[in-house]
Structure formats: structure tokens, C-alpha cells
């Protein structure tokens, strides 16, 4: 049960290893997101992630607690980078553990879907000398919205 917001490099492998050691429960799901080297318009050189740190800590702590309650998690962890990142750099790591896989999977996906639209980070892509703020993808809004009504585990 922890949230880390940092502008230092994160290591999803080390984070997963530590999470497994502390939480060898029946079902452990993790998600790791890495900077892609492309967007809809072409090659991306650098991704800049701006963050409202105090708010991110609060939002992600509340989100973890909500996921725990909603899906009966035994444990969870959320780690999120900010700052300037080159392609293939890890951005985010989420881990959830439960007695059964349905809950672990749903909770991890719920956290990721919610974090995308509700956590105070703003992505700016630098490519071919231009800087462009990333807008919210319609599919991300849709994925976030389904948790408002969806059965907790399906």
C-alpha cells in the first residue's frame, strides 16, 4: 500500500521483485508503461511529464485505497515518474495482489484507467523541433467511464 511520485528513474523489474517478495498472494498483477517512440504524427524524441506532486500523491493514495476496497485487494502499489523522459523509459508501475486473479486483474486495470484521466500529470511530446501537449484520448475517457457502472469483477 504505497504511492511514489518521483522525477528519478524507476525500475519496474526491481519494483516487481520487491512487491512479489512482500506479497506472494494467490494472484499478483502488474502493469508497467514505457515511453513509446512514436505518436499519431510520427517519431517522438522526448516526453516531458509535468506533475502537481502534492495532488498526485493525494489522488493516487485515494485511488489505491478505493481499488483495495472495491476489489478486496490484499495489497497494492503505484509508482509514477515525472520530468523529461526518452523513449523506452519507464513512466508508471502499478501492482495489485488478491486471493484470486479476477480481482487482481480488474483492480490493476481500474487503477490504470483512472490514473490516466484523474491523476495530475500532463504530457508534452517533443518531436522535430516542436513541442505539443498531449490531449486526452477519447478511448481513455471511455475506459475511465466504464468503471462508474461496471460490475466490480467482470
Amino acid at each position, binding site marked *: 500500500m504505497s504511492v511514489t511520485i518521483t522525477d528519478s528513474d524507476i525500475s519496474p523489474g526491481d519494483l516487481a521483485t520487491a512487491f512479489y517478495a512482500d506479497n506472494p498472494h494467490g494472484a499478483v498483477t502488474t502493469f508497467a*508503461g514505457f515511453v513509446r517512440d512514436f505518436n499519431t504524427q510520427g517519431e517522438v524524441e522526448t516526453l516531458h511529464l*509535468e506533475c*502537481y506532486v*502534492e*495532488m*498526485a500523491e*493525494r*489522488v493516487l493514495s485515494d485511488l489505491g485505497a478505493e481499488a483495495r476496497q472495491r476489489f478486496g485487494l490484499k495489497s497494492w502499489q503505484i509508482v*509514477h515518474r515525472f520530468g523529461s523522459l526518452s523513449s523506452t523509459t519507464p*513512466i*508508471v508501475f502499478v501492482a495489485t495482489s488478491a486471493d484470486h486473479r479476477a480481482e487482481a486483474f480488474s483492480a490493476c486495470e481500474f487503477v*490504470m484507467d483512472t*490514473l*490516466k*484521466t*484523474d*491523476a*495530475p*500529470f*500532463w*504530457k*508534452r511530446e517533443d518531436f522535430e523541433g516542436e513541442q505539443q*501537449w*498531449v*490531449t*486526452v484520448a477519447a478511448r481513455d475517457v471511455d475506459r475511465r467511464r466504464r468503471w462508474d457502472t461496471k460490475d466490480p469483477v467482470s
Partner: protein
Amino acid sequence: MAIRVKFFSLIREAVETEELTLNFDAEISTVAGLKSFLGERGEAWVEALSHPNLIQAVNQRVVFQEEAINDGDDVAFFPPMTGG
């Protein structure tokens, strides 16, 4: 009373300001009132703070602009978030 106001992303760029500390008498009682007050700084501020997708937070929680502001609060303005 004193409040801190923060700006992020597009909004920060538009108003060319990351953070302000404001001291004023209690005539500003809501986020909407704060927006009007800040709009007196110029057209760029009016435009940024009337952005159709503007989100405002008081003490790290997203709120409607009718939300009350109290002494010591942190207020923030920013566009839709793109985490993950």
C-alpha cells in the same frame, strides 16, 4: 487572507506563471471570484481561465468553481490530465 495559486501545462504557459501567493481581504470567497480577480491581470489571464476544459482544484481536490476558498488554501488551475 492568504492563498497559494498554481498553474500547470497549457494554463501555466498562457499566464506565464507557475505559482502566486495572494494576500487580500476576504472579498474573494469562491474559485469563481478568484478567477475574476486574476482576470484583472490582462487578456491572457481572462482567456486562460475561461478555457472550456479548465479544471480547478482546491487543496488537491477537483472542485466546481462555486467552491469556497479559505485562508491558507492551495488553489490550482490546469487542463485535462494525461497521466500514465
